[in-house]
């Protein structure tokens, strides 16, 4: 790795100030994404600020409404093993368990997980040189290159990469809130507004600015969470990014769907919420396969597959259907 300095943050306020004033500082928590990016020379911060010692940022606490608040420094493995998380939001525990490996889950923080770079193989490949994320204006090698693993929604010609976080898909489905400390105090960012679409500035994955520090993630209670499920389809049986994944949750009036939540991973620069499908699913019975299929299809009218990933359009609908029915079986 390139040379850099390392210091330890002891208070959030001073960490925020240091990060705001110095464009060469990067926060480091678990480090599992940042160190990989530094080894690939995809990012070269001159100074790292170790935030692992910040107080009171690793707990999982119950919220008065029945939701949970997860400190940004909680580790993926602790959150996945937490019995309250498993009972109240099984979709979140499952999304965490389907990500990375046992070793990485012990290291990676929750805040760092949602800060993972949206990326593709061309982003990590220093030898190609064309990547608007690595070097804005250099072009996108994937747009006319090998794009089997890339986006089918929301892409621009400047970037067709997908966000790798499984957790983010579940949090988008649950309408979680990212609590961010900044120079102006704390603010609350709805999860579906946290990540960006690439547009003409794909080097920005999310809406955070210099001096912003993720403090916690709140998951408010919702009627569907109890019957929820995360389904991930990938080229290997384990330890692999998603081709397509779905976070699904459902509440019913007897047989028929009263409300449903669906979000996809592996299809866009950010977790992709299927709002049209959620509306169309209301009133349909969970064992009416054709009805569910056509309701889910409502969200795929605007799918725009690339040269090598048209299969994702069909695959994503099947994965959404199975995830929804598996979630429904938990009622």
């Amino acid at each position: 790795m390139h040379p850099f300095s390392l210091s330890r943050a002891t208070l959030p306020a001073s960490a925020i100030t240091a990060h705001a004033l110095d464009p060469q500082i990067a926060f480091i928590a678990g480090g599992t994404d940042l160190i990989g990016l530094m080894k690939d020379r995809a990012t070269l911060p001159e100074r790292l600020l170790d935030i692992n010692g910040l107080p009171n940022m690793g707990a999982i606490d119950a919220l008065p409404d029945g939701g949970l608040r997860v400190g940004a420094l909680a580790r993926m493995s602790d959150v996945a093993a937490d019995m309250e998380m498993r009972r109240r939001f099984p979709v979140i525990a499952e999304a965490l368990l389907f990500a990375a490996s046992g070793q990485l889950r012990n290291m990676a923080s929750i805040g760092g997980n949602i800060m993972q770079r949206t990326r593709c193989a061309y982003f990590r490949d220093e030898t190609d040189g064309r990547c608007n994320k690595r070097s804005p204006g250099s072009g996108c090698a994937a747009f006319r290159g090998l794009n089997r693993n890339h986006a089918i929604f929301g892409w621009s010609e400047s970037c067709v990469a997908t966000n790798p976080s499984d957790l983010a898909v579940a949090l988008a489905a649950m309408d979680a809130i990212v609590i961010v400390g900044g120079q102006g105090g704390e603010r609350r960012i709805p999860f579906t507004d946290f990540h960006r679409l690439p547009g003409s500035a794909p080097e920005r994955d999310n809406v955070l600015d210099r001096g912003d520090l993720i403090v916690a993630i709140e998951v408010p209670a919702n009627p569907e969470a109890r019957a929820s499920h995360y389904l991930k389809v990938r080229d290997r049986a384990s330890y692999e990014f998603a081709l397509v994944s779905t976070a699904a949750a459902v509440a019913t009036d007897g047989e028929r769907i009263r409300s449903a939540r669906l979000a996809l991973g592996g299809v866009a620069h950010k977790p992709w919420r299927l709002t049209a499908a959620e509306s169309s699913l209301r009133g349909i019975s969970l064992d009416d396969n054709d009805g569910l299929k056509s309701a889910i299809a409502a969200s795929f009218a605007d799918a725009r597959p690339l040269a090598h990933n048209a299969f994702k359009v069909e695959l994503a609908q099947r994965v959404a259907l199975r995830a929804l029915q598996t979630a429904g079986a938990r009622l």
Partner: protein
Amino acid sequence: MSKTPKPGFGAASDNSSHRAEGKLRTDVLAVNLIVNDQPRTMTVEPRMTLLDALREKLALTGTKKACDRGECGACTVHVEGRRVLSCMTLAAMQEGKRVTTIEGLERDGKLHPLQSAFIEHDGFQCGFCTSGQIMSGVAMVEEAKAGWPSAATADVRNAITLADLSDTEIRERMSGNLCRCACYPNIVKAAAELVGN
């Protein structure tokens, strides 16, 4: 190889913020660790990984360096009793922590039961992944004892015990450790013996 700073951390590579701090940049740090129950102090550059520090500073070469990207698991050690990838963390971030490597598993000259099980079940050929496999397997059992579920768990809402560690569960829980010799069936057998299933 270009040394041009990459976007996201400011295109200008000036040192003004160093001067603004009014002190010289610190290039090396002293780190205190407890490695295999022994207090150890070493001087490292901040960029030195825990893996390189164990191998190069402490001559504990049982921990192997293979992919160096967090993909293969050969560098697995325990920090505070948890399995982690020593290639993906900085030595200087482990100040005061207890680290266990493969050299620290035996007790009073006796191998750890999982080490014996690897010999018994022929769980390796070339041996390069073996120390990582064993460190990972030992921690996997502790995780199951603590009730941790996995992606192979049918319903995460239910409690988990060691008795739930089927071969399918072991394969999933060990998926962060690759074996180029493909000794997986025998690695699973060795781990299953430790589990007692």
